[in-house]
């Protein structure tokens, strides 16, 4: 130790020391610079390790060329477009010359009479002629699959007068169990038969008798209804499994490795929430997984191109840059999900060995859905789009096949990302939980253990898990409801019941499980009357602007519902005319307004604010709200993303300012109800020359008035006394 410095504070009397002293007043706040430093450390730890680079770079380069050969074999086996080669063994050169001439004649005759030539490429025919006929055993060649068919030609030598070379007796030797041998024999037989028929025709016409076959045959080749190539089904499985292998080692190293190296205790001694430390590790694992995915994608595309498999398998333009980008997007979502799952599993392990023991079953389990999707009838639909792993495999396959549709693809990606976020939040529960104490560890039971003490707010983990459950549940139940044949009023009732069950029932159950006071957990609290007034004004004045945004989005081409679905909506609206207006307003305006607020600005919002500041809490809850509104029964409505997210921002700001969700409920319910009343009054609007509501802008006067009311509402919200600081002391519960 340096003797010239007897006091370690000496050099820090200046700026550093002052800052350190000041920082004692509050806990370390979140900053991107700090989070980046955490991430950088994890990336350094991971990417400087040669083992990671080997997995990342070398594995795809080695694997895909080898796999490519196998894929080519499979592809040629199943491809109907591929040129087939038949090997015909024949006893002598003379016989070969005759057969060649006869087949050529047969080919030309068939080509002239059949349409099949345009649909199926002619096979290549290879004649195997012996150098030494005495050692040539035709039967053995066919039996040993060295030739597809053996042909014995006994030439009679007589000329028959037409193009036919000479008369002959032909014997075909075919392998009984080989499809290829049968096809080759058919090929020869068809051509010889064509030549025979042509001879009969010519002879008949020479004798002055018109020749006409009693049966005329035309073979038309049809594309199968399901293009489901087994190779195309295998490719996503290989791609996804290879991608996740990149994340396995870093996930173990950055979690169980911390314990094994005895660095976990000092890490846990940092004054930052575990979630943030784990997010840094997560980013590093995702980065490596995505790099592995990219390498695999490149290696796969190069292999497909080099082995000329791209057009064979994918058809059309083969493997394009656009397809590569779409696949990378799907891989990225999958990388997010799988990296979080890996961290969840490895976070409770004390050593590499233990972590590996957890991951091997996971990898084996991951193969099962890959094999399932090879079975016919599996596609990305309402039932499968929210199934973890299966959805990404199906999405990748449909991207390769070019049959993907927007809504299930979006649901697959969003649900996968949400599952990933939930898994990460759960991993944070386990990672370092009493883990710094050597000899103790966070366990799985920590995740399922019911808290012993009562609390006021849900944790961020519980909030994100709730979101991850709600999204697929909402998607699936909306799909089921849209298929029902119920009467309009019955359907409205069911829709309201579903909204209550999902958006209030689910958080209620989760809050009860966590022993959290339900009213406090949902943010149902008293607040100043100013906020109710402001919420009422904003509720009335917001819809024209949301409407204009939807129209704007549609005018620039962002539109998810096609014409047939618009017809469905039109018929639905027509059906509603039979339903009392109050029922429509209650089921589609008030109930969603109340219930969605309970979840988004209540349960989710309160969980998020445990770890995020006010701005991020409002933004995250608003984006989740926006994404939910893109999912419509029977189709996606991307044009709703921006307006709904903006609406979510306004509702979140109202909840933040008022410290309660009640004003947000008022705002939301009035907004929904007003919009419904406008839609139901379309005839009246038509009289005012606003007939095509979805295409024509609202009158300027309307917009001006609503802008004024909106401004006043915002001002009241801004100026009203805020009941309590964000996320500390809460206002009195109702």
């Amino acid at each position, binding site marked *: 130790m340096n003797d010239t410095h007897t006091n*370690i504070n000496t050099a820090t009397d200046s700026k550093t020391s002052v*800052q350190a002293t000041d920082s004692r007043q509050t806990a*370390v706040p979140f900053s991107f610079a*700090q989070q980046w430093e955490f991430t950088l450390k994890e990336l350094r730890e991971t990417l400087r390790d040669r083992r990671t680079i080997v997995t990342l770079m070398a594995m795809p380069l080695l694997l895909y060329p080898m796999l490519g050969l196998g894929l080519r074999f499979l592809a040629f086996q199943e491809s109907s477009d591929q040129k087939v080669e038949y090997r015909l063994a024949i006893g002598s050169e003379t016989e070969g010359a005759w057969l060649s001439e006869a087949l050529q004649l047969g080919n030309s005759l068939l080509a002239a009479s059949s349409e099949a030539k345009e649909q199926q490429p002619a096979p290549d025919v290879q004649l195997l002629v012996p150098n030494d006929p005495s050692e040539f055993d035709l039967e053995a060649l066919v039996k040993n699959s060295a030739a597809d068919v053996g042909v014995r030609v006994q030439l009679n030598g007589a000329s028959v007068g037409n193009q036919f070379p000479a008369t002959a007796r032909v014997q075909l030797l075919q392998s009984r169990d080989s499809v290829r041998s049968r096809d080759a024999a058919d090929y020869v037989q068809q051509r010889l038969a064509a030549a025979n028929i042509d001879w009969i025709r010519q002879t008949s016409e020479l004798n002055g008798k018109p020749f006409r076959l009693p049966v005329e045959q035309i073979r038309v080749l049809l594309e199968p209804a399901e293009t489901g190539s087994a190779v195309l089904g295998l490719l996503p499985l290989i791609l996804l499994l290879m991608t996740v292998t990149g994340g396995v080692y870093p996930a173990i190293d950055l979690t169980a490795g911390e314990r094994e190296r005895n660095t976990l205790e000092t890490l846990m001694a940092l*004054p930052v929430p575990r979630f943030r430390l784990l997010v840094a590790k997560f980013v590093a694992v995702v980065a490596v997984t995505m790099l592995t995915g990219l390498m695999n994608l490149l290696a796969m595309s190069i292999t497909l191109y080099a082995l000329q498999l791209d057009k064979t398998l994918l058809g059309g333009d083969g493997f394009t840059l656009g397809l590569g980008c779409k696949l990378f997007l799907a891989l990225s979502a999958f990388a997010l999900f799988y990296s979080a799952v890996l961290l969840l599993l490895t976070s409770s392990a004390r050593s590499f060995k233990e972590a590996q023991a957890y991951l091997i079953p996971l990898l084996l389990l991951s193969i099962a859905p890959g094999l399932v999707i090879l079975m016919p009838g599996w596609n990305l639909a309402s039932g499968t789009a929210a199934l973890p792993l299966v959805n990404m495999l199906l999405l990748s396959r449909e991207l390769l096949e070019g049959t993907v549709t927007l809504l299930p693809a979006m649901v697959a990606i969003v649900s996968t990302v949400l599952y990933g976020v939930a898994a990460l939040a759960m991993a944070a529960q386990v990672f370092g939980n009493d883990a710094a104490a050597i000899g103790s560890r966070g366990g799985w039971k920590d995740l399922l253990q019911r808290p012993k003490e009562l609390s006021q707010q849900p944790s961020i983990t519980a909030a994100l898990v709730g979101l991850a459950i709600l999204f697929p549940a909402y998607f699936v139940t909306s799909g089921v409801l849209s298929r029902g044949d119920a009467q309009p009023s019955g359907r409205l009732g069911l829709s309201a019941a579903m909204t209550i069950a999902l958006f209030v029932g689910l958080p209620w159950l989760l809050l009860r499980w966590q022993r959290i006071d339900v009213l406090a957990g949902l943010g149902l609290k008293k607040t100043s009357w100013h906020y109710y007034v402001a919420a009422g004004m904003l509720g009335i004045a917001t819809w024209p602007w949301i409407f204009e945004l939807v129209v704007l989005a549609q005018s620039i081409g962002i539109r998810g519902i096609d014409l047939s679905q618009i017809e469905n909506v039109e018929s639905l609206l027509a059906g509603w005319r039979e339903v009392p207006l109050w029922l429509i307003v209650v089921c589609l305006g008030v109930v969603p307004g109340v219930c969605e607020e309970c979840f988004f600005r209540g349960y989710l919002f309160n969980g998020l604010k445990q770890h995020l500041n006010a701005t991020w809490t409002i933004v995250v809850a608003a984006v989740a709200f926006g994404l939910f509104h893109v999912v419509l029964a029977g189709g996606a409505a991307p044009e709703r993303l921006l307006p709904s997210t903006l609406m979510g921002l306004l509702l979140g700001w109202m909840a933040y300012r008022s410290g309660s969700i009640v004003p947000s409920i008022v705002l939301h319910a009035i907004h929904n109800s007003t919009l419904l009343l406008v839609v139901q009054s379309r005839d009246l609007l038509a009289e005012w020359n606003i007939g095509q509501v979805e295409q024509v802008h609202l009158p300027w006067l309307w917009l001006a008035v609503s802008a004024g009311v909106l401004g006043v509402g915002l001002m009241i919200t801004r100026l009203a006394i805020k009941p309590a600081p964000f996320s500390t002391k809460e206002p009195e519960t109702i």
Partner: protein
Amino acid sequence: MIELSQLTKVYGEDVVAVDQLSLAVGQGEVYGLLGPNGAGKTTTLRMILGLLQPTSGEATILGCRVSTDPLRMKQLIGLVSASAGLYQWLTPRELLQYFAIGFGLSLEQAFQRTRELAEVMELERFLDRRCATLSTGQAQRVNLARALVHDPPVVLLDEPTRGLDVVGAKIVFDYVQLLRQSNKAIIVCTHQLEEAERFCDRFGLLYRGKLRYEGTLAELRASTGQPSLVDIFLKLLRDDGSGNGSSNIDSAKEAVLAQ
């Protein structure tokens, strides 16, 4: 500066690791928390640090309570543990900067603090080498420096000399002197009793989670009539009312003397 009040940790239903421990450590004071393996020393440090939740009781530093604000508590503490490892793929410079920023310093302040500590702890020669290539002594210096990156008012040392040779132990001794001169409140947990006599101002003898004796060496000598910490410790074992039998005491004595 540090105050422990009735701090208790019970594992499961009946395993009492720390039993109603109360003590106080002032600024510039080195407090030796002594005891055999399993006495509850490390558990106590982890409760102060907020890594373990106390079953009951409270730990307070400069008015900050671990039960209500564990993150702020961590900011006030530097931890040195003999078992702590280093990140093998980072350099000492990167490691120190990482922890400095983790403790809330800005990037510039982290650079400055790293430079200062590198000079004081003599790290300059190997500051940019990978930690995996450092000798045990060099790694020990980095570990000691890491605990001071945020200039904490309190430093907790858990078995700081375990596994070190004479030179390594001398580094730790100098380090503790440095901390004392910097007016930090220090708790040293060790079972190296003779060594503790050299650098601690006051002692607390922990046995089976309970604080049996507390005071300066002179006070302990006066109250127990024993000349050294080793003898005081042996007396403690003899007086232990739980009656573990003489064979246990003999084996404990052998262990103490072997140290």
